[in-house]
């Protein structure tokens, strides 16, 4: 209550401060017929309470985890995916989504004054926490962006390993660019280039529909292109899932090396057992790894330098930089006509010199930010190379914890029957007894 009075008092002071009443061109009429002004219609947002969305997200994640790890049912995962597509996609129109919430959280870390509502925070964290325990169950069936692509993956092919790994660098670049654009105040890239939200809202620009349509068509053969080769939140989920406590396993019991699952994964997420006859001996491997570690600073330095030199190009993402360039070009007479933006700028109070100074300051920010971005990409490339050159022993067909989306496709390919429970055993004995 106290704060309410305070707010009222503050408002009163505020209004009193504006004593000078506005001058109106025409006098307001005094009506004789008893006419009253109609009420203005100013409706407030009718938002679904945050608790509902958070609960639905939690339950969907929990049920998916159960479907993947306990009941091992692909059809169940698929049903949850349909539900998520309908609820988070078409009903909630794709907002809030955990993929985009990443930006709000990063922005709150960079800009202390930027608040993150509880629902956004929950949407950011819940899938990550679930990934730490159960793997990427969020990707499996809860993400509406994943679900819409899952429906389209009709005849998936397997990409060759080098292509898969090279394209797999893109999400890191997207993540880096997202952070870069937040650090420089450029905007929310993930929301701007969300390919499927146009379908959820049933309205978007032509380019948005085109990108979404191309990705979905591509997704018929190359399953889930956005998830695997673009999604920046997927990078975080991948990291979290690497440490997952319980992760989906292809076999319910011991692997019998039948190789039936080998071609079942459309996401290239099955780790094939290392052959016994090593084609690379230990010493060569160690030398290669040593060389890579030595080269890492060089690679990181080069990519950081590349990022810094490219900063002028990257800085054009920022609207102020673009406006300054246009205003400068118009002043030099390179354009005959003005744009809405330059007109609005000239109508405002700011002088061109101030605008140029602003733009230069932003470019300077971009210089550092792009260098950091370059260094990050260098580290990612080196990390990938190091991971490739370390031979890890595995004797069974296992899911790659980072890349596996827990879609449960491979389960059906495994002929191994899980450990028989007591009741099943009893039923089997009874059946046999009845037969004899």
């Amino acid at each position, binding site marked *: *209550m106290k704060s*309410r009075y305070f*707010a009222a008092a503050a*408002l009163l002071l505020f*209004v009193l401060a*504006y004593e000078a*009443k*506005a001058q*109106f*061109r*025409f006098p*307001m*009429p005094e*009506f*004789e*017929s008893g*006419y009253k*002004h*109609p009420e*203005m*219609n*100013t*409706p*407030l*947002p009718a*938002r679904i309470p945050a608790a509902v969305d958070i609960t639905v997200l939690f339950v969907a994640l929990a049920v998916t985890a159960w479907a993947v790890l306990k009941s091992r049912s692909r059809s169940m995962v698929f049903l949850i995916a349909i539900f998520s597509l309908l609820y988070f996609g078409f009903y909630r129109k794709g*907002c809030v989504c955990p993929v985009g919430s990443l*930006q*709000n959280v990063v922005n*709150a*870390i960079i800009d202390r004054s*930027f*608040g*993150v*509502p*509880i629902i*956004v*925070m*929950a949407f*950011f*964290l819940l899938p*990550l*926490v679930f990934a*730490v325990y159960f793997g990427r169950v969020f990707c499996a069936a809860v993400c509406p962006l994943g679900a819409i692509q899952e429906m389209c993956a009709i005849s998936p092919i397997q990409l060759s390993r080098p292509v898969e790994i090279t394209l797999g660098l893109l999400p890191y670049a997207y993540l880096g660019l997202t952070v870069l654009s937040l650090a420089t105040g450029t*905007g*929310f890239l993930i*929301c*701007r280039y969300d390919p499927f939200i146009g379908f959820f*809202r049933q*309205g*978007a620009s032509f380019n948005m529909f085109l990108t979404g349509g191309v990705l979905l068509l591509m997704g018929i053969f190359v399953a889930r292109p956005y998830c695997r080769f673009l999604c920046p939140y997927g990078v975080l989920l991948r990291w979290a899932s690497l*440490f997952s*406590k319980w992760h989906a396993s292809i076999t319910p019991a011991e692997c019998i090396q039948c190789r039936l699952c080998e071609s079942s994964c459309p996401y290239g997420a099955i780790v094939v057992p290392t052959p016994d006859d090593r084609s690379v001996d230990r010493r060569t491997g160690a030398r290669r790894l040593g060389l890579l570690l030595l080269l890492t600073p060089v690679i990181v330095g080069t990519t950081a330098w590349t990022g810094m030199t490219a900063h002028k190009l990257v800085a054009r993402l920022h609207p102020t930089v673009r406006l300054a360039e246009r205003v400068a070009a118009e002043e030099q007479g390179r354009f005959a006509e003005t744009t*809405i*933006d330059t*007109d*609005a*700028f000239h*109508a*405002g109070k700011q002088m061109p010199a101030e605008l140029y100074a602003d733009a230069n300051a932003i470019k300077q920010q971009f210089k550092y930010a792009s260098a950091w971005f370059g260094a990050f990409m260098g580290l990612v490339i080196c990390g990938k190379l190091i991971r490739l050159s370390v031979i890890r022993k595995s004797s069974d067909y296992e899911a790659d914890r980072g890349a596996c989306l827990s879609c449960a496709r491979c389960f059906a390919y495994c002929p191994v029957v899980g450990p028989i429970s007591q009741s099943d055993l009893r039923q089997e004995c009874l059946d046999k007894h009845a037969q004899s």
Partner: protein
Amino acid sequence: MSEKPKIGRRDFMRVAATVAAGGGAWAVARRGDEATVWQLDPAKCVQCGRCSTNCVLNPSAVKCVHSFQICGYCDLCGAYLQPGAKARDTGAENELCPVGAITRTYIEDPFYQYTIDEKLCVGCGKCVKGCNVFGNGSLYLQVKHDLCVGCNECLIARNCPAKAYERVPVRTAYLLKTRDNGVLVPKLNLGTRLDSGTGKQG
């Protein structure tokens, strides 16, 4: 050899990470207690027309609103009639609004009331410009929150040449013009739903 039940290093790390994430989330989330919405400041608006074309919704969530209390109820209305209109009547050829969303009603001599049909309005701002050039500026654009989907980054805000968009607290979800505030001061929104909640209770 100890016989203690072993809590693995990884288990510990997992729980620690979860708790740390939760704590961090709480610390950050509390700052964002007050929900905000996008709104445009009519004092900054230059009526460029992008509100109607840049919204992710089609038609746009931005509509023209009318502060009747500062309207002059003119017969010769700069917002309703085309410049140089042949007659001051409801003929379509005389109307400025491209979608015919303004209704002209006779009140008493010589006053006319102009009402915006929000179902038709596309938020182009043509009438707003007309009212600013020849009128009291009682018509202006506002984001209607029953329509707005509340994007993280409002697409119109990003492309607004006048930088008229900002996030405002839900309390002041509309920046309305009144007789007292002239045209500039954001007014507390005492909309239908809020009345019971905050305003007149105390």
